[in-house]
């Protein structure tokens, strides 16, 4: 027998938590409409909110897998661990990116006059990749969604309040108030992807070795 994934089930199993990123997107679209064309407000709001919530699904996908009583049962099934870990996070990250593209398309087409789609897709997409890795890693490290959320909040709030000066080595925020030319985005984008890849890889390796069960 070879175990197969069922991603629609994973979606349902997250319960109300599955819908939070959609609510965030709706709020961000509404905010952009409210601040119509004021990119100095819209871009910081998008940068400080949207990528952070990329960690949401990475965290709550693992509630049943590492946090709930009896989750060890899942590891006794003939399904490969990378499918339970990396594959699921990867799939939900792709959905998150599609969600981002839809959101940016709506803002780009109807709410601002400047061309924002491509530059913001690069900026927010790579930052989201970083945060999806943060969520995955913190969940695998702490095995509790509560603690994973604390890590997320502490990292984001300290970086935002100090404008990235507290731990500059892991700061991925640009704090721009206007659309940056794509040539200026490659550096920060590559940095986010590099840091994100380290976090994803670490989380994956740790997930393969989980021996502590509730």
């Amino acid at each position, binding site marked *: *027998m070879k175990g197969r994934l069922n991603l629609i*089930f994973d979606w349902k199993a997250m*319960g109300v938590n599955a819908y939070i990123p959609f609510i965030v997107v709706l709020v961000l679209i509404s905010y952009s409409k409210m601040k119509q064309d004021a990119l100095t407000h819209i871009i910081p709001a998008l940068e400080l909110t949207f990528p952070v919530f990329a960690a949401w699904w990475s965290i709550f996908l693992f509630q049943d897998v590492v946090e709930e*009583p009896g989750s*060890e*049962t899942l590891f*006794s099934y*003939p399904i490969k661990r990378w499918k339970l870990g990396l594959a699921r996070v990867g799939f939900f990250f792709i959905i998150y990116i599609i969600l981002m593209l839809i959101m940016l398309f709506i803002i780009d087409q109807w709410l601002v006059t400047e061309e924002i789609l491509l530059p913001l897709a690069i900026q927010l997409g790579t930052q989201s990749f970083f945060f999806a890795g943060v969520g995955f890693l913190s969940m695998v490290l702490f095995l509790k969604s509560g603690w994973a959320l604390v890590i997320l909040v502490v990292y984001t709030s300290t970086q935002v309040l100090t404008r990235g000066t507290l731990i500059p080595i892991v700061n991925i925020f640009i704090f721009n108030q206007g659309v940056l030319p794509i040539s200026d985005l490659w550096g920060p984008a590559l940095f986010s992807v590099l840091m994100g890849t380290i976090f994803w890889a670490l989380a994956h390796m740790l997930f393969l070795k989980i021996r502590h*069960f509730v």
Partner: protein
Amino acid sequence: METLILSGVSKNYGKHIALQNVSLEIEFGMFGLLGPNGAGKTTLMRILTTLLSASSGEIRFGNLNWNEPHKIRNIIGYLPQKFYLYKQIKVREALQHIAKLKGIQSNNDKAVDSVIEKVNLSDQRDKKIGKLSGGMVRRLGIAQAILGDPKIIVVDEPTAGLDPEERIRFRRLLRQLGRETIVIISTHIVEDIEATCDKAAILHKGQLIKSGDIHTLGKIAQGKVWEVSVSEDDFHSMYEKCNVISSHRTDNIYRLRILSEEPPMNAGLFSPSLVTPSLEDAYLYLMNKKG
């Protein structure tokens, strides 16, 4: 029928030895692993279910060896001590998902409906797991374990937290499973083993103390279990003086069951009489001896 063979299985966590050189042969039917908390039962269960690997030793079942865990996972069903997953999901839907995780390709729905019926959860199939009672969740746990007809079913502390009625129902269910496969239950509740198993092994501090037929194990305490009747006045002093394992009150007379190498002296209204030891007596005797 194939036999599950454990040869010299040990597990260390750094300097701590959780299991030491455990060798067992487990045949078709119900097998009990008995021991106090910290005896190494859960570690052994987790090794059997491939969640942990043994530090040394070998486990085999027919041609299968535990050094190929991906193959073993196809023949194992596991219910841990606590099982409470997918609270947001309905019973049938959760089991259908588990069937997919287990890689059951054909007749997925039929297999799910069959286990639901087997564990008597048909009326709850469309209920969310979060709305089930403790006993129902336990039965759902066994349903996921038997899905895919595993050859070996491992159940950790099967009746923990169940009310007496559910406990009896759950034991009956385990008995039924033992007719078709190897069922290993691990518990510190002797009654669970007595009620369900034909054979058992007793673990203490990671070591296998005894194993064998339930009745043979009981005989370990032969000639060491006494019954004596005492008045209410003597009841408390007897408890202090002797190793009383159980007591029953009838009117004003207490009937005590005492574990002792020698007959308890000056012991109450009637002279002490030797009784046939049960598995529980043998277990307590062994635990006393081991300290």
